[in-house]
């Protein structure tokens, strides 16, 4: 094994066991969300048998620390969790591509042309707008919908959302948690084989 960037070692050694545990939990949460949301575009299960958010998080950590691969560089990406999330996206992207390639073998030429035509920017915008509508439908109260819309407008922080909607900050945190729960459950589709 070749020697890695000493800054990586330094950063990891500086983390407490609690910080490592929190990193893994938050990464797994993102992996779980990503699997559920990516499944929307897949016509068939795209994860290997037995592979779940936990496996995905572990694979991302392994890849990020592989000194012979595209490893984490703390200078370019100071936030390890953010970097690990990008690795999760990359792994899922590869899995999706592999599954789509397999699916294309079953598609005739006319269908293939229709699928290619659908990939325009205008189509993507329409799809994103439809998705927003769908997400709003999944929520139970107007307060949840307003918070979701405010986040989609680019306001992420609870304090900003609270100020904008005239709500208590703690209430916004609670609403955010509820929204995430509703969406996670509703976005779940047939994910693994």
């Amino acid at each position, binding site marked *: 094994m070749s*020697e890695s960037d000493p800054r990586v070692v330094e950063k990891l050694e500086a983390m407490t066991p609690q910080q490592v545990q929190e990193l893994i*939990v938050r990464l797994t949460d993102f992996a779980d969300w990503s699997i559920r949301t*990516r499944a929307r*575009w897949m016509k068939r299960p795209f994860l290997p048998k037995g592979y779940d958010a936990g496996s995905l998080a572990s694979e991302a950590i392994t890849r990020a*620390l592989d000194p012979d691969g595209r490893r984490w560089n703390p200078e370019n990406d100071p936030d390890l969790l953010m970097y690990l999330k990008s690795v999760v996206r990359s792994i899922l992207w590869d899995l999706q*591509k592999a599954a*789509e390639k397999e699916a294309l073998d079953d598609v005739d030429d006319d269908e293939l042309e229709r699928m290619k035509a659908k990939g325009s920017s205008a189509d993507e915008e329409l799809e994103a707008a439809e998705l927003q509508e769908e997400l709003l439908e999944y929520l139970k109260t107007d307060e949840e919908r307003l918070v979701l819309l405010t986040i989609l407008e680019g306001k992420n922080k609870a304090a900003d959302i609270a100020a904008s909607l005239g709500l208590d900050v703690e209430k916004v945190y609670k609403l*955010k948690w509820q929204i995430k729960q509703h969406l996670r459950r509703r976005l779940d589709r047939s994910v693994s084989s």
Partner: protein
Amino acid sequence: MTRREDKYNESEELLDRLFEGLSENADVNLIQEELINSGIDMEKTIEDGQEIIASFLKRQKLAKGRAKFERIKKALADLHAGVTPSVEKARDAIARAVAGESSGHGFQVAHRKLESIEIEDLESLQDDAAILEFVLKFEEDEEGR
């Protein structure tokens, strides 16, 4: 619904942005509980992640130790072969090998320690076992400081 082959599409970007917005300051214990309720073995996931990081750090320590050993071995081989022109230069070379740097605190400390070692004692380090013993003794003194 289909996806473009060549890029991260708008809907994926929207959903990832939403995740960030909804996760701000979310309680890690609640997240863990929710993941467990979704059927994810969080005990194993956490253990696996911790093990990957611990094993990476262990391997890095070994690789660092091995690289240091090779540097010192090379500096001593140069000394034996008469490549190093003076006792002072020999100590410089070995201090660089020990510290892994040619200036700075680590280098200064190593140099000072080497000054208390006779050059004949350094010249007597001929085989791997003797060199390893020297390195370990050096590190022991360092840790005991």
